[in-house]
């Protein structure tokens, strides 16, 4: 087990390195000049001398490899530099934003797990029923809806037309620490997040449940008319859940990615919105920091999920999960 963990850890390092180089080179090949973005306001009035001065200050005229290594040596020590736009440490800015993103993604995950459990289990148990067919169609539908569009439609319905829920932000000012207000703001974005991933999970759970249900010993048990069907179903559910849970763990990172767009639509003050704004403002240092941070987080999660997988049941290898993936065509 330790050997496994260690080898996985070693594999992670080159991945992170490649990640940082990729992110860095992309940033600097980008159009748009952070010096101009920093000037803000009336860029018509910015003169070449101003531009040069700001570029010098930000060290943008040094050769790229030099800039990269300077950044890297700092990053390794935990210093991701200062944001170009407002001069604050990048790590601080990220730290402020992370809880919001985590809150959103985990609420979304929780909601999604509950919903997919319900739909997946029931449709497997009542295979070929109307419920099953309806669920299949719905899950296809959910696959096909862009999450931001779903968000817009829900905003239209619940905020604009009905006025029940707020359309943006995480808190109303002055109500910080008020759980009710937070919940009020959390419902729509978490719902969008949950629903937009639901399709794949329902089908996964359904197919994995069916696989167990169709096994001989279950058939025999049913044929024998063992009462307390519930116990059987629990046993079935239990066995089906194992691959489902490992699948969940492995695909959690994509949830994290899914929050990015939802955050932008709802102005949810998390990492996603931060990264998008940084991209638009050509705020290189902040963008680099966010990309690296996201990458690290995802890699860590993958590692943990792998380990848990291994702990649980070494027999459940990557391939089996991938097999299930292929069955439902989810990436």
């Amino acid at each position, binding site marked *: 087990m330790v050997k496994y963990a260690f080898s996985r850890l070693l594999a992670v390092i080159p991945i992170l390195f490649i990640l940082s180089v990729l992110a860095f080179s992309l940033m600097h090949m980008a159009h748009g000049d952070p010096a101009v973005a920093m000037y803000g306001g009336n860029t018509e009035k910015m003169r070449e001398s101003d531009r040069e001065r700001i570029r010098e200050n930000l060290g943008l005229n040094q050769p790229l490899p030099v800039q990269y290594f300077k950044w890297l040596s700092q990053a390794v020590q935990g210093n991701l530099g200062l944001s170009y736009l407002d001069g604050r440490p990048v790590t601080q800015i990220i730290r402020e934003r992370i809880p919001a993103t985590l809150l959103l993604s985990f609420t979304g995950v929780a909601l999604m797990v509950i919903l997919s459990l319900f739909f997946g289990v029931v449709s497997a148990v009542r295979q070929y029923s109307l419920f099953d067919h309806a669920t299949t169609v719905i899950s*296809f539908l959910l696959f096909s809806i862009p999450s931001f569009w779903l968000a*817009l439609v829900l905003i*239209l319905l619940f905020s604009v037309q009905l006025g029940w829920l707020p359309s943006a932000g995480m808190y109303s000012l002055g109500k910080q620490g008020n759980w009710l207000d937070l919940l009020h703001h959390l419902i729509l974005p978490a719902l969008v997040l949950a629903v937009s991933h639901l399709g794949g999970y329902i089908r996964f759970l359904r197919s994995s449940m069916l696989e167990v249900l169709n096994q001989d010993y279950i058939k025999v048990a049913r044929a024998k008319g063992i009462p307390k069907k519930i116990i059987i179903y629990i046993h079935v559910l239990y066995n089906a859940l194992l691959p489902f849970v490992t699948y969940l763990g492995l695909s959690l990172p994509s949830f994290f990615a899914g929050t990015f*767009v939802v955050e932008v639509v709802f102005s949810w003050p998390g990492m996603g919105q931060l990264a998008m704004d940084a991209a638009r403002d050509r705020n290189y240092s902040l*963008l680099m920091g966010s990309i690296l941070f996201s990458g690290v987080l995802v890699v860590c999660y993958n590692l943990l999920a792998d380990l848990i997988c291994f702990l649980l049941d070494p027999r459940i290898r990557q391939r089996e999960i991938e097999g299930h993936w292929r069955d439902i065509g989810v990436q």
Partner: protein
Amino acid sequence: MSSKNKFWQRMNKHGMARLGLAILLILIALSLLAPFLTPYEPTEVDLYAVDQGPSWTHPLGTDNLGRDVLSRCLYGGRVSLSVGFAAVGVSLVVGILYGASSGFVGGWLDRILMGIVDGLLALPNILLVVAFYLFLEPGLASVVLVIGGTSWMQVARLVRTQFFSLKQQDFIQAARVLATPNLKIIIRHLLPNCFVSIMVISIINIGHAIITESTLSFLGLGIPQHEPSWGNMLMGGQMTLLNGSWWQTVFPGLFIVFTVLSINFLGDAIRDALDVRR
């Protein structure tokens, strides 16, 4: 399983496939026939008809510059559909080349190449797309490149895995013994065996590409607003949403949903059909 259920199941799949294909063909036809279906140009500005709801003159309403929404949806379909297909084309080319090389050669090359793929996959997809986009000129070609350039990894992985397992098989060993040139082995023997999975993944990816294009345009990064795409129409729609102009958001979105839905139906049905054969 009773025969009735089996029948129902097959019927279902066939039905879905047919439905999917039908919807997709209709949508493609609508886009191609756009000039005949609407009297308005998609970029025709009418400053006296700004932000109007659906009416007899404008069945789907107008946007914030008075442009006809129906016309823009139809012409926008051309953009979104072609981006979808082209982007997947790009990802196939890159992915197959990459995965084939990695899988066939194996060893340290494989480790490095797959390491890079893992690194790229570790990034949230949308962030990668945005990052790539930043250093290209805004426009159709760039969007295709960007989406294609960020979705080849899956194809590469798939191809590589297939190559890896296929390599061990007898018929390949036999070919090797017969001193068949490597390229021939790849093209004649290995690739065709991957065909099925590649095809399934490509079809599904077309749907993803369309959604990614719309997301990109929605964020203001894709196709600039004057030439319509379903995504940039949604961006414009978001700004007037709070004023209650629902038609600018609902209609383009529905087009996207139906397109991707039909693609998914199709892909699913194809996969099932090919699976049965296997």
